């Protein structure tokens, strides 16, 4: 493998020659230049597909690009001219001449011009291509690289060139019938021997080995470019090697040429993502062992950084942290700001994810407390002009604000700041995360439709540049939102349509599976298929601890839900207490605290000890109110209403529920709304009872016939509300809720004396139950 020159580059040189000879009409110049430049400037490429194609460009690709372009010579296309130039190189020496002469295409340097002027020489003819243009640079680089070639490398280039242009032989001989003497080397024709001679066998051994002829030739330069691109892709997006790249790498290995050292790093990244810890570890060490000598910059801190990340990813937190601390120390020593900032940022995020592990870090005080750490990161990022880091730091700050339940305005401010940085400094891979953050924020303030649209925008417009992890998280969020809205099948479809390349990363695959299971378990719980749900939940619990604390919490909540539905309230309470004890250590999110309090209050309410839960519910309401977590606020308020209902404060309960219902509807949370409606119905029925005999305080369905009108009215609204509740529950396929609503409706109809309708309700009840049981039995 040559360092830089490949046959396709020689062909580009030939095209440059054709171009500079002026045999391309003005109209076609742009197209030809486009062909040239798109193949010369690899850095401008965005998609790796193009890049790969570039590295192993065949002559036929050029034909495709140029065959239609007419040249200044009538009847000949640019392709024909190029072919002529290519086939004019008929022996190794001609190739030498050709490449050595290419600098003649260039214009004169300033020095030459000055010298010419000063010495009054007649102006020498020179090329028209400006030396500093991309094309000029390319030509200069090519001729320089050619000069640096050893002889056997230049013969290798020559043989590769023969193989490269071979596919175009037919096209050339068609147009120029009697020119070609030998497709290999004119010297062979001179010797009057054919290609079966031993001599040619010796000389073109290389080509004979490569029988399929499909071999693309790569230069080290191309390879490095390709790999650098891959590495940056993999690092910024967190994916694995695409299959095309894998085959390319395999090809390189088969060529037996010295692949760049970066291959090891690529392998490291790939096996890391594949979850193959030992290979990743091995390759990482190999990469750094090989690169230690070859560059003057010391890479130790990067090695440690990668090592720490790797270990953390595989759950060896205890080893990851010291490694990272050493990385920080080394980076400081070497004044490597960029690396240092990365380390700090990682450490910060690690601390956010696993607060329990950070004891030692907090003690050394590298980062100070969370906000200090963030401020430090922000200022460093600004100094070092690391805009991605700045953007993510701002988003992190917003996230902290949210978690601590601080001012919403601050949150928005940070998000807007981050978006500003993204736009102004062109950080496309942070746009998605900013939207994701916004979506979270909106869902916290109960603007679920806004949250949903943010997520959609992310997935539609920015998923290409965003890290795969964020794409995955966003998809799962969207699915959760859809489930909450009652669009269960949509949610499932959403989960299924995650692109396969994301799922190739083991970590994401696990994350995806876990969340699919969580969604499924929730769905089954709704459908009251408790045994199946129980199975899934035990599965999920057995996988504890999950790499994400969020997931663990969700699983625990599901577990509690299951226990409640099984009416094992004591066990549920125990589990809840456990969770509450652990929560502040792992995840001091206000929202979680709020939900736990609400849940506990509900639990008390369910076990007919409503008053015990009163203060809990009050605290939850207060907390949610102060942190402006609206869905939780409504849930907490609902819990309060339940307590009020139990203590016969029907009017207060009705007022409370009626007050939150519009906002709850805004949250698009079917379950919440359904429960609200149920509570409302209860309060109506209670009020109806009170209207008849306020002194003995009987509940629902009692008939005393005092203020029949009011009573009937209230009962009517109860039925209406129950119907609505039933509808909400139907959407999310919540069996228990639907059954409850039906039963209550049946009772009301019974009370009204309309046995037929009551009977109908009863039948509905039975059939619904049967239907669900059958569906889940299948």
């Amino acid at each position, binding site marked *: 493998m040559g360092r830089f020159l490949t046959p396709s580059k020689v062909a580009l040189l030939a095209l440059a020659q054709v171009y500079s000879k002026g045999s391309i009409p003005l109209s076609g110049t742009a197209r030809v230049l486009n062909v040239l430049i798109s193949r010369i400037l690899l850095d401008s490429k965005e998609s790796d597909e193009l890049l790969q194609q570039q590295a192993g460009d065949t002559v036929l690709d050029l034909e495709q690009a140029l065959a239609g372009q007419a040249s200044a010579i009538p009847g000949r296309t640019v392709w024909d001219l190029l072919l002529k130039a290519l086939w004019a190189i008929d*022996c*190794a*020496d*001609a190739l*030498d*001449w050709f490449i*050595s002469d290419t600098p003649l295409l260039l214009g004169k340097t300033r020095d030459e011009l000055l010298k010419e002027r000063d010495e009054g020489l007649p102006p020498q003819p020179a090329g028209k291509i400006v030396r500093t243009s991309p094309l000029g640079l390319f030509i200069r680089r090519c001729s320089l690289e050619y*000069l640096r070639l050893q*002889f*056997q490398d230049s*013969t290798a280039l*020559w043989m590769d060139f023969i193989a490269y242009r071979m596919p175009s032989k037919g096209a050339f001989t068609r147009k120029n019938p009697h020119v070609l003497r030998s497709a290999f*080397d*004119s*010297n062979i024709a*001179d*010797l009057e*021997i054919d290609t079966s*001679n*031993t*001599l040619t066998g*010796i*000389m073109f*051994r290389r080509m004979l080995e490569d029988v399929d002829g499909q071999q693309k030739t790569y230069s080290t330069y191309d390879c490095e470019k390709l790999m650098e691109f891959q590495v940056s892709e993999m690092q910024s997006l967190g994916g694995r090697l695409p299959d095309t790249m894998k085959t390319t790498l395999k090809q390189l290995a088969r060529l037996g040429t010295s692949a760049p050292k970066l291959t090891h790093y690529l392998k490291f990244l790939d096996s890391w993502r594949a979850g193959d810890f030992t290979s990743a570890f091995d390759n990482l060490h190999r990469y750094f062992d090989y690169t230690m000598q070859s560059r003057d910059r010391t890479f130790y801190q990067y090695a440690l950084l990668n090592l720490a990340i790797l270990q953390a990813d595989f759950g060896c937190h205890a080893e990851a942290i010291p490694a990272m601390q050493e990385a920080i120390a080394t980076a400081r020593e070497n004044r490597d700001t960029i690396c240092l900032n990365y380390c700090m940022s990682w450490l910060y995020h690690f601390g956010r994810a696993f607060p329990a592990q950070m004891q030692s870090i907090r003690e050394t005080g590298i980062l100070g407390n969370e906000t200090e750490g963030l401020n430090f990161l922000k200022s460093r990022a600004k100094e070092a002009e690391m805009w991605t880091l700045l953007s993510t730091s701002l988003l992190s700050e917003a996230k902290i604000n949210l978690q601590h339940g601080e001012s919403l305005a601050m949150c928005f401010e940070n998000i807007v700041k981050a978006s500003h940085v993204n736009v102004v400094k062109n950080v496309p891979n942070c746009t998605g995360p900013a939207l994701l953050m916004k979506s979270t924020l909106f869902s916290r303030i109960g603007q679920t439709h806004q949250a949903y649209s943010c997520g959609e925008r992310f997935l539609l417009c920015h998923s290409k540049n965003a890290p795969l992890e964020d794409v995955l998280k966003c998809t799962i969020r969207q699915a959760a939102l859809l489930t909450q809205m009652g669009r269960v099948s949509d949610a499932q479809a959403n989960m299924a349509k995650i692109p396969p390349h994301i799922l190739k990363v083991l970590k994401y695959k696990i994350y995806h599976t876990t969340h699919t299971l969580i969604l499924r378990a929730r769905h089954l719980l709704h459908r009251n298929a408790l045994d199946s749900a129980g199975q899934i939940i035990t599965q999920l619990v057995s996988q504890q601890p999950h790499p994400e604390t969020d997931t663990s919490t969700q699983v625990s909540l599901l577990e509690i839900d299951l226990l409640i539905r099984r009416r094992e309230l004591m066990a549920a309470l125990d589990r809840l207490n456990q969770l509450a004890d652990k929560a502040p250590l792992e995840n001091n999110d206000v929202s979680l605290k709020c939900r736990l309090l609400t849940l506990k209050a509900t639990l008390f309410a369910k076990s007919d000890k409503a008053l015990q839960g009163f203060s809990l519910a009050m605290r939850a309401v207060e907390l949610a109110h102060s942190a402006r977590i609206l869905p939780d606020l409504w849930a907490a308020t609902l819990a309060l209403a339940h307590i009020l209902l139990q203590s016969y404060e029907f009017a207060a309960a009705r007022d409370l529920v009626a007050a939150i219902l519009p906002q709850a509807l805004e949250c698009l949370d079917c379950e919440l709304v359904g429960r609200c409606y149920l509570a409302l119905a209860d309060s109506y029925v209670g009020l109806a009872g009170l209207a008849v005999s306020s002194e003995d305080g009987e509940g629902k369905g009692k008939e005393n016939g005092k203020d029949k009108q009011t009573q009937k009215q209230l009962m009517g609204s109860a039925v209406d509300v129950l119907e609505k509740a039933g509808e909400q529950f139907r959407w999310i396929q919540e069996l228990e809720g639907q059954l409850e609503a039906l039963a209550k409706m049946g009772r009301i109809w019974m009370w009204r004396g309309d046995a037929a309708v009551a009977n109908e309700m009863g039948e509905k009840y039975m059939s619904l139950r049967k239907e669900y049981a059958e569906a889940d039995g299948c």
Partner: protein
Amino acid sequence: MAAVSFNESLASGPGDEGALVVEIRDRLTEATIKCSERCLYQSAKWAAELLNSLPDVVDHDSPMLGSDAPTSSYRMLSTSYDDPQEAALEAREAGKYLLAKSLFDTKEFDRCASVFLPPAVPAGGLAIFEKSKTRTPTSTPSKTRRSKPSETHSIPRLSQKSLFLALYARYLAGEKRKEEEGEMILGPTDGGMSSNRELSGLAKTLDEYFRARDAADPQIKRAQGWLEYLYGLILARSKQEELAQEWLLRAVRLNPYHWGAWEELSHLLSSVDDLNAQLSASILPQNVMTLMYQIHASIDLFSTTDSNTTITTLQSLLEIFPTSNFLLTQQALFYYHSKDFETSSSIFQELLVNDPYRLDGLDHYSNILYVMTDRPKLAFLAHLATSVDKFRPETCCVVGNYYSLCSHHEKAVMYFRRALTLDRSFLSAWTLMGHEYIELKNTHAAIESYRRAVDANRKDYRAWYGLGQAYEVLDMGFYALFYYQRAAGLRPYDAKMWQAVGSCYAKMNRVEQAIKALKRALAAGTYYETDSPAHSFNTSTSGKGKGSQARRITGHKLLDPETLFHLAQLYERIPNEMEAARYMELCLAQETGQTSVAPTRTKTRKGVHRQNLTSPSDPPSASQHFEGDGDGDTEVLSSPSSAASDATEEVSPEHNTIDEQPGSNTGFGTGTTATTSRARLWLARYAFKNNDLDRAELLAEELCMDGFEVEEAKGLVREVRGRRDAAG
């Protein structure tokens, strides 16, 4: 000459020839086996190659061949079949021998030697140093050191084969160490000074051995020739050339099919005279190998005097070995040295196709292509050689030559260095590297590498010439002159050498000598045919010497206008305007190829040079005219063509190197060149000065027409007209 007579005997009859071939086949087989038994790989290769170039045995011989088979296999098993004593010894040592041979093959030379011989360290080990300190001052340490080894060196009773292998291994070990001491090519420790430390010990051992053996076996019946060769080799390496030659001759007589000995012998020759002395003294054996040697040596010496003999011998040898790569290479080299590049390169090309894996001698081919500036072919050759083996000195030389031709001198130097790293004794690489250093203006490095080349082989005229050039660049005229003279001594018929000598003299203001040298250059220039487009005779072996004669007759000689111009300038410096004018005229005449333009010339003294021409020992060259008689030379040179035209009836055809149809051959002129134009301008001025206004005007107008020196010419025309007007 003896060799020639043998040569004639070769072609006496077809029946004899068959027998001869069978005989040669047997001998060569034997030589190959024996050489490889003794790890003389190159000689073995040479013999085997030659063996396989013999024509296939005709069918009717096959039964006989079958009956031969047991004997030949017998020979294979015991190579000393004719000497029972040696055979017994060899049988006894068989195990040890096999060990030693495998050690040799794995390049563990010291260990190999120690299988048969006690190590060179004295028996007492390092204790000897302590002893020498305490010794009484009367006996010097050097003496003890000498006496001690001789005791230990009393050679154990060994077969000659084993002894040879052991000693040869020790010699090679010394060579290896010597090379390792040199470290990098042209590095600080690589001064060419380090010597093989084993040499003296080996010489002593062998000396003792031979003394003992000669005493025991005065008829030297049991000698096999191998140890003699080794002794000769060692003597040659320790610069005792006379003695070395003697021993090598002995080796060659005993074992004529050992090519290495012949090659070593040819290295010892310093001039053609040595070779002739060897041949005439009939100290060489009478067989086909002597002919090989003769060819090789005379080609190696660039000898041109006996080219006829050489070529006929070559042809007859090629009849025996029709496909011998060695002989064909020699043939190509022969044509190369006589500057017939076309023929030479076509022979090489044929060789290339026939055996593309063979790299030997390809460096010469690349030199030829270099001189012919045939870049495509040179690139092709380099490509081929690189594909065969990129780490062979030959390959590196080819690639170096290619880069040199492309003016990538740094790269060329790199490749020559590589060649030398691979093989320090690879002579041509030293010289070529010197050339490249000259191009890179690194004169000191150039001098050093030329010097190394010369040290390795004193017969390399290119290195001498290069040394001269280098010193000329440094403005050290005396040195340069010395080296140019050496080069000219080696190549007396090469105009370039004499030109260099001449210009050197001119620089040193020794005009007389400069003129002499330049005249020699002119004469030498006519000796080689510079252009032979029509009659470059076929490469095939069917030419049989006729070709060379044909070439000689048809060729048309041009005198080099540059040299003529320089000569004229020199005469102007003396000052001798008459002569100067004549040379200028002659220079002008080269434009059309007419050599008899100067009608004013006197034709006296013809007799003198005719006498010279007819002297029998002369080389067939016009150059001979200028040697010796300082008076006559001007005449002769100024009218070589007229001399020749008269000479046809007197001079034997083979001596007639000069064109037979003077003045008629207008097609061979150089055409108008810058030099001839300058000569014309000079002549015009001269004519003007001598008031030959018509001629001056004519010449000036011609100049205007040719487009050289137009301004000057116009000025001159104006002046002429002015003066004519003034006169008229």
